[in-house]
């Protein structure tokens, strides 16, 4: 599904990713952890195609396509979804209008017919239930006046609507209270399937109690320095990152 080889990327001339390797197979859930500034969010941004980041080396294969060669909207069309850490507000644009344009743009890219208003509303109603999202929220402007928890749920809602092959969750758990965390995690679990993969970026083990990963990787100074099963997350929670830093230094 996703094969990252020796990926190097920088922003404003500063190198952040320094030769990252990662392979994700269909249906797998990978968690990326690591101390602040290790390059976790950069990885998410580079995969989604943010212009500010310059890819200086390496390659990324996404389901047989050269991901780095695609525009951000084409990547979305190919089935890459990023749940943002800080979803932006778009005043005056209703969530419904935004999503309908989004869903139909992606469908157009996939050479599927556009959904009619009726079909779209039905789909929206169905997917809203997965994230227990108040239907009034879809009438409001995109993320405007949403609470932190609502914004994150709204991201997962959009993911459900767009049915991606690969979903990247960039610190989706940050700023969530326990109830919201449960709702978001449940939604993600419902969306897990043998064809759909997840890349979960997080600081905390607690999210991984709910979304149980197949693999856990530690990102440090722009490289994946340790990989393991879900028990690695527990070990990190207990011991912190110092022992990893020492291992790397040794």
């Amino acid at each position, binding site marked *: 599904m996703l094969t990252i080889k020796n990926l190097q990327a920088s922003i404003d001339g500063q190198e952040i990713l320094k030769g990252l390797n990662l392979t994700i197979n269909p249906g797998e859930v990978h968690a990326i952890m690591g101390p602040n500034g290790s390059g976790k969010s950069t990885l998410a941004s580079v995969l*989604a*195609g*943010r*212009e*500010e980041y310059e890819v200086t080396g390496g390659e990324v294969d996404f389901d047989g396509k050269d991901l780095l060669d695609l*525009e*951000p*909207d084409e*990547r*979305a*069309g190919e089935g890459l*979804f*990023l749940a*943002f850490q800080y*979803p*932006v507000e*778009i*005043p*005056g*644009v209703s969530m419904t*209008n*935004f*999503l309908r*344009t*989004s*869903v139909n*743009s*992606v469908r157009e*890219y996939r050479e599927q017919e556009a959904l009619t208003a009726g079909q779209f509303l039905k789909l929206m109603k169905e997917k809203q239930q997965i994230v227990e999202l108040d239907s009034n929220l879809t009438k409001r*402007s*995109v993320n405007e006046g949403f609470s932190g928890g609502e914004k994150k749920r709204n991201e997962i809602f*959009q993911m459900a609507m*767009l049915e991606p092959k690969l979903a990247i969750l960039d610190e989706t758990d940050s700023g969530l209270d326990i109830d919201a965390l449960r709702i978001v995690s449940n939604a993600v679990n419902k969306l897990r399937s043998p064809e759909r993969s997840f890349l979960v970026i997080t600081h905390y083990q607690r999210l991984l109690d709910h979304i149980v990963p197949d693999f856990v990787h530690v990102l440090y100074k722009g490289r994946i320095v340790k990989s393991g099963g879900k028990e690695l997350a527990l070990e990190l929670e207990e011991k912190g990152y110092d022992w990893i830093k020492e291992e790397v230094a040794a």
Partner: protein
Amino acid sequence: MAEDQTLQVEELSPDEKIIQEFTEKKYEYGWVTEIETDKAPKGLNEDIIRLISSKKNEPEWLLEWRLKAFEIWQKMEEPDWAHVDYPPIDYQDIYYYAAPKKKPQYESLDEVDPELIKTFEKLGIPLQEQKMLAGVAVDAVIDSVSVKTTYKEKLAELGIIFMSFSEAVHEYPELIKKYIGSVVPRTDNYFAALNSAVFTDGSFVYIPKGVRCPMELSTYFRINEQNTGQFERTLIVAEEGSYVSYLEGCTAPMRDENQLHAAVVELIAEKDSEIKYSTVQNWYPGNPETGAGGIYNFVTKRGICRGDNSKISWTQVETGSAITWKYPSVILKGNNSEGEFYSVAVTNGRQQADTGTKMVHMGKNTKSLIVSKGISAGKSNNSYRGLVKVMNGAENARNFSQCDSLLIGDQCGAHTFPYIEVGNPTGMVEHEATTSKIGEDQIFYCLQRGLDEEKAVSMIVNGYAREVLNQLPMEFAVEAQKLLSISLEGSVG
């Protein structure tokens, strides 16, 4: 008390490439319709005015009125205070009269010149459909002479008059004589004086006492003849307790030479009446690189709330023209009268817009609301200029102004010139202004959801302008949204 809150963006944006592409978008509605025209020679003098007047079989008093206006105009200076820049206009190098050769009178749309129908279709304004679906009576003005008026009979049953200005001069001379120049006198300004001397046609609307006009009245203006100054004149009178919503929309074909447009619109609202006037303007903005060939739009629009509890509301979506000089205003004379101004002005390429409003509070408890949304892209300049004036007799006058500017790219300018004059201590005037840049984060968010850059910008901009677009009647709002997208297509891409 003028305050200049000039803002220029200086920082380089990482999205420069995007913005360049966005701003290099070409004008889509550039074509010429081949309809035979009858044209007077270039230049402006008494003879031309006499010719215009005689072509229209006008009564003597109107010819005199025009000649007086010409005399006034000759003594005036072209204004230069607006934040716009253009080469001097040679008023002797302009055609002041062009009319379609045949002035057809149709019973059904099938009889209309197919070229004309094609033109409307290109504009996305299917006349027939509008007629049937939207209940819109369309008085289409092509090059100054009214070609087609629909729904006239139905309106006539209610005593509503909706016809071309020239017709009204013959059929309702007393009304025209009473109201022409009563809100915008010939002496008002340079362009109003010019219009008064040479206006060729326009629309006249009269809503009798107590009548609520059951449909949106709509005129599509279109400049069609090369080098023809377009001097339209619109007069709307709403008698006591009446209501009317009027729509004006325009697009123009691509041209090499500048086209001067100096219209005058006068609105009169009597006691307890309401006039809603909406405009969508998309004239050729000129070459995006040089600005050459675009329309000069120097318009005087003013309404008077003459009676108590009357209301006038202006809504405008201005996307076209090389230069826009336009300040739809309301004189709040009646007690408890209300004035509103909702505006979206988009400038791209080399366009320049200096637009805003004047709210003059004379009556007691008068209220005014100003919502202005400027959008600048390319190398354009977009200025809001507004006056809120509270006269000494205007007890408890209230005004709220909201002026927002949105910048796309780093080579455009947004300026705000609010003038406030309060002559009564009970007056309350509030002014809020914001300037923002279209967010890269917003664009990226949309891209990540599969929207391409043009869709993204269109969506963000339409969201920004929502408050104003919501004021437009449904079918017009759709067209306005389309125009916003079209005029900004290519500026992020």
